């Protein structure tokens, strides 16, 4: 069934179709309509879902940590300050190896107060041991929620699904909503390996000495390393069932080009138009969408770089003192390669300023015109 729904409604459909057992959440703009939608959908009692309307985001994640330890499927959604407030518990969820799924609607962090799109919230949680998947459109949002549970429950790591504020969260698009039967066939009920059982008592998240702690973290790294293969398998199966899918990255436009334009989130949608236009004008440029940020798709990107001499990457986020975070990860991934393209790291659209086709064109034109970037951070659309 096709429906015209917002990104936040797409999240809610994904959650309901995933037959989530426990939802725990707290309102924050622009995530709030997810919580509202889920409250409506769970209020009727048709679903068995327990919705804990907790008093903070910290408690939202803590409650899910309790519920997930109790062996059931869990969900929460948040944004910006809410995600930052959860920070401690994000570490706890991955450390306890709990397959919780969280949707974060990207929003800037204050001050100054700003409720618009900016990836700095989710990207500043990059070291918490969560898988991070960014979405380009509302269909991808719904589908990624379904895939997220498969990935999380396979590798025993939490997964964060990320979408842009307003551009997706509050914008309606036609979305194909799969039937419950179709989703049930793709996503079986969660069967935890260990859980709370009074017949077989266990202690969870017990203190570990320096003799053991390193090995616990090693295992998390090993689980992360499994993600590319498992996510690919999950996506392949998804594609065979639903006739659509999304890789960790996706190349569009020409097969190979001198310049590669890298983007994430909704900026990719705009970039597709720009790349097509510039290709018609004879520019040697192709596009690369990055969906999976953590683990960073190093192998996949290296394969797609092919003969590209320059990479233009647009970051809607900022790690002050360094620059764009995607650019930073990209530089680190390419360092050990023999042939390294020049990286043009653009920072743009912070706090929800539109990244327009004109700005993207400007970025590409700059990349064409310069053998190497004049500065480490190239500010795109900055008012001087």
């Amino acid at each position, binding site marked *: 069934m096709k429906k015209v729904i917002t990104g936040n409604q797409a999240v809610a459909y994904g959650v309901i179709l995933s037959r989530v*057992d*426990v939802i*725990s959440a707290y309102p924050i703009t622009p995530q709030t309509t997810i919580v509202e939608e889920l409250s409506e959908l769970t209020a009727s009692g048709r679903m*068995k879902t*327990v919705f*804990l*309307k*907790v*008093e*903070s985001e*910290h*408690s*939202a994640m*803590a*409650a*899910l*940590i*309790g*519920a*997930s*330890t*109790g*062996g*059931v499927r*869990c969900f929460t959604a948040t944004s910006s300050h809410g995600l930052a407030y959860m920070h*401690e*518990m994000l570490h*706890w969820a991955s450390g306890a190896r709990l397959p919780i799924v969280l949707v974060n609607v990207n929003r800037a962090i204050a001050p100054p107060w700003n409720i618009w799109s900016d990836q700095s919230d989710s990207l500043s949680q990059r070291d918490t041991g969560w898988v991070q998947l960014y979405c380009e459109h509302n269909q991808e949002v719904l589908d990624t929620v379904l895939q997220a549970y498969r990935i999380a429950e396979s590798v025993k790591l939490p997964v964060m699904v990320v979408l842009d504020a307003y551009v997706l969260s509050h914008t309606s698009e036609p979305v194909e909503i799969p039937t419950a039967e179709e989703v049930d066939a793709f996503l079986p009920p969660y069967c935890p390996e260990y859980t*709370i*059982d*009074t017949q077989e*008592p*266990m*202690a*969870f*998240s*017990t*203190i*570990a*000495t320096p003799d*053991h702690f390193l090995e616990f973290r090693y295992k998390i790294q090993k689980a992360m390393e499994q993600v590319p293969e498992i996510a690919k398998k999950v996506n392949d199966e998804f594609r065979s069932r639903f006739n659509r899918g999304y890789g960790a990255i996706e190349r569009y436009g020409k097969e190979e080009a001198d310049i590669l334009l890298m983007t994430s989130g909704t900026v990719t949608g705009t970039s597709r138009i720009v790349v097509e236009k510039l290709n018609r004008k004879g520019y040697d440029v192709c596009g690369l969408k990055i969906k999976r940020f953590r683990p960073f798709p190093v192998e996949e990107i290296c394969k797609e770089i092919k003969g590209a001499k320059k990479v233009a990457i647009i970051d809607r986020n900022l790690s002050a003192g360094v620059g764009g975070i995607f650019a930073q990860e990209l530089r680190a991934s390419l360092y050990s390669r023999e042939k390294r393209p020049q990286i043009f790291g653009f920072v743009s659209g912070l706090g929800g300023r539109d990244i327009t086709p004109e700005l993207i064109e400007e970025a590409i034109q700059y990349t064409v015109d310069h053998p190497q970037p004049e500065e480490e951070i190239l500010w795109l659309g900055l008012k001087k």
Partner: protein
Amino acid sequence: MKKMEIPLSENLGHGHLACAGCGAAVSMRLTLKALGEKTVMIFPASCWSIIPGFWPYSSIRIPVVHAGFVTGGATASGVRAALDIRGDHETVVAVWAGDGATFDIGLQALSGAAERNEDFIYICNDNEGYMNTGTQRSSATPLFAWTTTTPVTKPKENPKKDIMAIMADHQIPYAATATIAYPEDLLRKVEKARSIRGTRFIHLLSPCSPGWRIPSEITIKVSRLAVRSRVFPLYEIENGISYTIREEPHVVPVKEYLRLQGRFSHLTDLEIEVIQENVERTWERLTRKASLKLK
């Protein structure tokens, strides 16, 4: 009061790491007897993140979930939700939190859960300070007490927070105080809590021999004097309104309680008088509330 039998079951095993004379170890042993084996216990950060033992061992013979410092109320809400989804309405969810995790850093999560009347027993194991980190002041530390952050040159300036009043005002079905010198009373209250649904709160006073600067063999004696001096009265509050106070037949001056403890050894007679007045005022407030009970 009816004589009661203390269950023989032991769910706190050998090899735990509590200090000699630890009041909380006695509290835990008794509480586990009353809770029984169909219980899961949640430990926000406290001495009890360590006492049960290091991975892969645990000296507690029921399922245990260690949790973030502030998260007692929230983690318990989640565990309860999971058990309910699984159709297990029988297993008791209990939180065992220190006074720091209850009076201070975890108060928000506890208040949120109590307002939602989440179905669990929250046990505050109160040793009146951050003992696991080396005896720092908490809002449960009594007036004029020494701690490592309230040195004798500037001891604690404020009286202890009235956590029972706060919990009672959430109108939860059951709240009670208990301490180890009165094991039958403690067991009866935990058993009563177990028989009720909704948020239940037990405030346990557990003397801490290193933190209170008392010899390890007088833990029980100090616990008893806390009650006799009315520093820690034993009472229950049902539904936020119905009070039952255990009248202490042998009331002693607060001085008898204070003088046993090194943390109060710097007190002048005048300061002891102020504490005495404070205790009397608190007692009066409690009995006044109890007499307001709706008939």
